[in-house]
């Protein structure tokens, strides 16, 4: 697709996103309650944020790191609760620290042993999650009753999102956008060719740490909505879908953010239409549907496109072979 087409597509997606709530009100009779609006907005913001940062995770071949980091956040939530009670700030800080520790542990295992990345991720994922479960079980045995809802971090509980969460998501989203814009060329060069970047005087370690921190922050924010298991899908599905439509990193990141926002918003709307459908899983299903659409339909790269091209090649080949005889 030409560059202009992709921008048009992004614009159309954003329009669709804005019209999502009024449209579904008109078409499906959705009741626009306060909760529905807040959840849809939260889902879109989170989708945009994780879509944009997920691009770097996918391109750095660290798709599954997000999975390990989201599981690793759980003991942090529990410890945060033990130390400060049920305050969202404490829980998120705890989650962030635990997740970051998990990241360091993966790096340490990779640096000092011959265990490969997949197993290192698995070790951290399972043991941190076990620590989280052990702590949560312990917390449940405490007399204090206010622990209710801590396990919503495991599955995510969209209905628990309130206005202050939206403000937090929006603020962090803005901060991430600013950092991405300012350090764009550094992030890009480091992701494409780390050796060349370091030889050219880029502080690779610093930029790397910054990028990882942004991803950890996104995961931690996403836990409440999507839960530890599905967070990895939120992170990488929009990025993979976006990759099929464009050949430029700029467009990929913007498109992934738009696709993520769309998936987040529409997943929330669908689950609002049927109260038995949970929000987080629905968002994932929508995001995957976008991936499937992209890898089949995307012009130039998609499966259908390349099948057609193959057939055309074959036909050309055959007709050329027939020509001399004809």
């Amino acid at each position: 697709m030409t560059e202009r087409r992709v921008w048009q597509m992004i614009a159309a997606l954003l329009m669709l996103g804005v019209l999502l709530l009024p449209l579904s009100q008109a078409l499906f009779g959705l009741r626009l309650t306060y909760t529905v609006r807040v959840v849809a907005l939260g889902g879109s913001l989170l989708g945009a944020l994780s879509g944009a940062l997920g691009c770097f995770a996918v391109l750095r071949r660290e798709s599954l790191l997000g999975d390990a980091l989201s599981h690793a956040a759980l003991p942090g939530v529990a410890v945060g609760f033990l130390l400060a009670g049920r305050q969202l700030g404490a829980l998120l800080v705890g989650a962030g620290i635990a997740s970051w520790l998990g990241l360091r542990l993966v790096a340490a295992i990779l640096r000092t042993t011959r265990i490969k990345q997949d197993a290192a991720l698995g070790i951290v994922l399972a043991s941190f999650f076990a620590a989280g479960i052990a702590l949560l079980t312990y917390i449940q045995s405490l007399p204090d009753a206010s622990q209710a809802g801590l396990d919503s971090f495991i599955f995510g509980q969209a209905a628990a999102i309130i206005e202050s969460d939206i403000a937090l998501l929006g603020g962090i989203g803005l901060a991430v956008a600013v950092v991405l814009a300012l350090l764009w060329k550094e992030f890009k060069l480091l992701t494409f060719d780390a050796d060349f970047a370091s030889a050219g005087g880029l502080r690779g370690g610093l930029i790397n740490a910054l990028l990882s921190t942004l991803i950890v922050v996104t995961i931690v924010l996403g836990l409440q909505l999507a839960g530890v298991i599905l967070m990895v899908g939120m992170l990488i599905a929009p990025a993979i879908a976006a990759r099929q439509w464009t050949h430029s990193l700029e467009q990929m990141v913007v498109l992934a953010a738009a696709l993520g926002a769309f998936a987040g918003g529409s997943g929330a709307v669908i689950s609002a239409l049927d109260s038995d459908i949970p929000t987080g899983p629905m968002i994932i299903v929508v995001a995957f549907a976008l991936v499937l659409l992209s890898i089949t339909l995307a012009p130039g790269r998609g499966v259908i496109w390349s099948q057609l091209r193959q057939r055309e090649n074959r036909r050309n080949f055959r007709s050329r072979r027939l020509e001399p005889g004809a």
Partner: protein
Amino acid sequence: MMGLERALIEMLLQFVTRDELNAFLRSPQHTATLVGCLIAVCGALLGTFLLLRGLSLTSDAISHTVLLGIVIAFMLMTGAGLEGDTSSPWLIVGAAAAGVGTVLLTEALHRSGLVRQDAALGLAFPLLFAIAVILVSRFVDDVHLDDDAVLVGEIGLAWANTNSHCFEHCGVLRITPEHPAAQQTRQCANCRELGISPRDERAEFKEVCGNCGVYSPAQAWSAGLLDEAPTLVFFPKSITVMLVMTALTVGFVAVFYKELKLTTFDAALAKSLGFRPAALTYTLMVLVSLVAVGAFDAVGSILVIAFFIIPPAAAYLLTDRLSGMLLLSPIIGGAGAFFGYDLARGLLFGIFPVAEGIAALNAIFGLQLREAWDSSISASVVLTMFVIFVLVWILSPRYGLLASAIRRANSRRRFEDQVVLAHIHNHQGTPSHAIELQAATLHLHFRWTPQKMSRVLMRLRALGFLSLEAGSAILTQRGDAHVHAFRKHMLVAHNIPDIDPTQP
């Protein structure tokens, strides 16, 4: 399944009395440890091959998507009017299908050439898991499939879910209306229909048997219908399920050991020799799915991956041989299951009380946490395995942090010696001799601190490898021999010709 259990019990009864067996199995600790050990053996054996093939996280994906298979099979069964039970063979078939489905979906995504392997995995399993969760909350209403059980499971309850087997006084009791114990009552047959009370004259009555039906010996005894106690053994279902899984796994690994070894290390060679690496891989994945679903009740779908990944990873740091890994990793996993139960009850490795740790935390940070520690057994088993992994990571004689640190310190010292000796050797007798070998300025050539250089020079002089002449370092004969010996050693390691460029 029942027949198998019975044969097993009869074998056990050759060695212990029935009461001893019942008492043993009724203890939550014994059953939990036994089931945990069996899961650990299966996981460790299969996980070893996953680890060596770089597929460890496939077990993560499979253990999540197994849920989808269970849910779909469960829905089909309840739709067909069958009783849903998580140890039913149909659920196991569904789970195995879901496991293979995950692998197929991942490969299809990957084969499109548009998605990388790890990304394909990261796409496939959240999707299948999300679908499962939606199905559960939309269509299924059953305690066995609620969220918590899915994720965590509770191995501590494995002892309570049993099949009963009867050995004496077993006659199946069938109570018919004619049976002396039958409890007959008169009931109005048409009261509800006509909307009248039983006292109405139009009421017709019939005899109804309140307790008729077929009683298993255990039910009959507990209903007080038997004079003589039947001889019963209660056998936990999880043990049977995991025993079957273990037999399958051990059998598979034993029978296909050679093929597994070959395909793991060189799939291309294996294929060219006429083996079918793909078939083996899928069998492996089916077994992983089966073990995941067998362990589902006991440890839940996330923690089970620890059984596949952590013990083989620890064994990988202890040995270089496949057979060694296959031997060590079940032992490590079993030890985790064994000590994990103690940890859940507050004792790490049966020695260190967790309560004291909490008390210390309370004292240091001024917290008021409850000191009695009583936690999830499954999670504690995983944590124990992780602790074992960390201990191995630090202490392993070959690859441990400690051993490498010591080795590194030693070889750094040797290495420094060699660098200096080689430098002197290379410049001795060349025109730049006087500049390059001044002991006072030697450190500048290496960008070392003067202290480091003088330390090395002192050591080398003490070893008799060099002497100082007019402020320049000169190799002694011994030093010269040492340089040549090292050179030979180093060059052999690099497999390059032993030619000394400084020789004419």
